[in-house]
């Protein structure tokens, strides 16, 4: 059994309070100082110690592998707030045992926008990985691990060998989440699945005292993986799981540091990057006529586009995109794309299941979804006015 540990690094350009009365003022929509401040804090608590732990694991365990995705907005902020974080990632990549995963540069829902937005954003991201890390990624992930037959076809057209997806029952149709599959819609694309129970044991449950398995030791966890039948197990989670969602005081970093040893003691366990894993012979096909994501209880796009506020904001963004593209001003295009980052829509989530609401509030930078929507719409309205003026 090969373990695919895949960690996702992302930071959005959060908006400043941009009032309705600020329309036309020329003020920036983004709160750079606050974004970089937040970044520095997370770098201290999570990025640095976790990257160091990973590098240490790579140095001491020739078997160890890890895969990362890093959004363009993450790298932009890292460059300004904590350049050493980028250097640490580069050091990981130089070991040759770390795969980087392609995605949309702006962590956007570009796959719901008319072409060529998706292809352009993926191209931007590929160029960034090439320029910054000398890497040409072969595996694609979509924002929030979105997967569908259409997206697999897109990946095939872009010559990716594989895509990541949630190992959700709706997608698997009775098949095991611990095998590699072929995309039903795109035979050259292999689908690698997130094992959500084991991933969430670390991601969500690790520090919960109410959890029957608390405290989770690396030995116990390795033994669970060893007992799981199959060829490959996808442990996909936010990078910030280590040190941020679970602070260092919970022992999460010690858990990570001890994991390679614990895995080494299990005779049938090994590690693989996403690129190694997609070379495993597929056991069948998976098909997703409707998009599946890794979020919330429903594994759909409801977290971003589930309510009227979110849909109206996204539709408005789509319309402004038409104007911005017609104008062709690169600065406005970049600003528009920063507004496409899915987090903005996530903040507008209103209700739903208790557990999900808690998760949404944890990630929100606003007092309420109404705040988030009003502020977003102000920025977008201002951008539209600028585009319209430019077109005159």
């Amino acid at each position, binding site marked *: 059994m090969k373990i695919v540990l895949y960690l996702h690094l992302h930071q959005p350009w959060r908006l400043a309070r941009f009032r*309705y009365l600020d329309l036309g003022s020329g003020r920036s929509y983004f709160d750079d100082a606050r974004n970089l401040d937040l970044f520095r804090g997370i770098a201290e608590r999570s990025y640095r110690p976790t990257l160091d732990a990973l590098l240490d694991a790579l140095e001491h365990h020739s078997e160890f592998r890890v895969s990362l995705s890093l959004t363009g907005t993450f790298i932009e902020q890292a460059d300004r707030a904590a350049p050493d974080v980028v250097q640490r990632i580069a050091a990981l990549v130089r070991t040759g045992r770390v795969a980087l995963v392609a995605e949309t540069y702006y962590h956007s829902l570009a796959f719901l926008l008319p072409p060529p937005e998706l292809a352009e954003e993926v191209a931007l991201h590929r160029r960034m990985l090439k320029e910054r890390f000398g890497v040409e990624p072969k595996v694609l992930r979509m924002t929030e691990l979105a997967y569908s037959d259409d997206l697999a076809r897109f990946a095939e057209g872009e010559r990716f060998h594989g895509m990541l997806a949630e190992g959700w029952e709706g997608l698997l149709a009775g098949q095991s989440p611990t095998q590699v599959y072929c995309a039903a819609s795109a035979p050259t694309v292999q689908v690698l699945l997130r094992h959500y129970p084991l991933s969430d044991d670390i991601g969500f449950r690790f520090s919960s005292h109410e959890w029957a398995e608390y405290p989770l030791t690396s030995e116990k966890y390795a033994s669970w993986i060893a007992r799981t039948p199959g060829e490959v197990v996808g442990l996909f989670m936010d990078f910030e799981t280590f040190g941020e969602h679970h602070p260092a005081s919970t022992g999460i970093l010690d858990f990570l540091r001890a994991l390679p040893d614990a895995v080494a003691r299990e005779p049938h366990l090994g590690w693989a990057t996403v690129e190694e894993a997609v070379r495993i012979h597929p056991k069948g096909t998976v098909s997703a006529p409707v998009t599946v994501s890794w979020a919330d209880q429903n594994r759909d796009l409801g977290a971003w586009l589930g*309510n*009227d*506020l979110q849909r*109206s904001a996204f539709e408005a963004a789509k319309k402004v995109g038409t104007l911005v593209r017609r104008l062709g001003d690169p600065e406005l295009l970049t600003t528009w794309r920063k507004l496409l980052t899915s987090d903005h829509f996530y903040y507008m989530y209103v209700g739903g299941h208790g557990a999900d609401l808690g998760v949404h509030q944890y990630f929100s930078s606003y007092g*309420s979804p*109404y705040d988030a*929507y*009003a502020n977003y*719409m102000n920025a977008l309205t201002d951008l539209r006015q600028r585009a319209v003026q430019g077109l005159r």
Partner: protein
Amino acid sequence: MVGWEFPPHHTGGLGVHCYELTKELTRMGHSVTFLTPFKGPFTEVPGVTFRSPGGDRERAGIPLEAYEELPGPGPGAMEGIDGYNRWIAELPDAAGHDVIHVHDWFGTVGGADAARRTGRPMVVTIHSTEYDRSLGHPWPDVLAREQLGLDAADRVIAVSRHLKQQLVDRYAANPAKVRVVYNAVRPSERLSPLAQSRAIVLYVGRLAAMKGVDTFLRAAARVAPNVPGALFVVAGEGPEYPRLVTLAVHLGISDRVLFLGHVSEEERDVLLASASVFVLPSVVEPFGIAALEAMAAGVPAVVSKTSGVAEIAAGIFAVDFWDIDEFASRIAELLEYPALRLAMGEGGRWSALKEGWAERALQTVEVYAEVLRDAPRKRA
């Protein structure tokens, strides 16, 4: 229960609170003797006995007519209130009650005397403070009565956390004995809006300095050029009225502002059914039940951050009371983004009706239970 105003004779949140509270308390099986200086008739509540000093007029020395209008600060005003308090202190059957519950400052002297004499525990509910009502120029006589009530009370109920903090900061109330019980509203039937083509931004309330209605007008002046159709409606009366009318003229928006004067509850409900945004810009607002009523009617509300209602309501915009641009922006956002108006209207309605007067009465009874648990110790 030592009260003051009561429907249909009431001007503020206190009267509504007492009415709804006694209604729920009696529904729960408790019986209430409600003391008020005013002559009835009052809105009948089964299980509530109204008592006013009218019957014992000569003994208590109360000039009852004086209470046809609420007394304001001035010579002679306190004499009547002193009489009311003497009458409370000497009520022969006070000992027949389990708890003496005093609202605000009017009856604190008599309530505390009665509690001392009978050994009954005393609860004081504070709806607003003299500091707030006077915008920082308190009337010492009133202040002293508030202080006496807070000191003598076994438990204090504040209608918001913000107010509780003020009681601790300004009156040195012991935070351990202050509980927070919010106001509530009842769901009303949804009326159909008036036939109209203009968006209405509504203020309903007294035209008093603490209400910050000038902020409403200044914000209106900034919204008006951006949202050409919007009409700003001020419903209510009060001492600030002439100044506010003049201000509207100076701001150049006299054609965009409608001063309606006093409106009945029915008229208010019709206005709410037609309004796009409700604004409560109070400088101080211990609770702000008007905003909760608007939300219950599905109207999104913009309130000042200091309003107690902002503590419990989720579907609301809370703004610093001095931040005119932010008030204007929030109003414009609600007018310009229909999806926001609808979502916040729905969210606000749900949030306003989540806990009703039944819950508030239960929370009040919990406070009674607390003081009754402590009562034997007190008497010993």
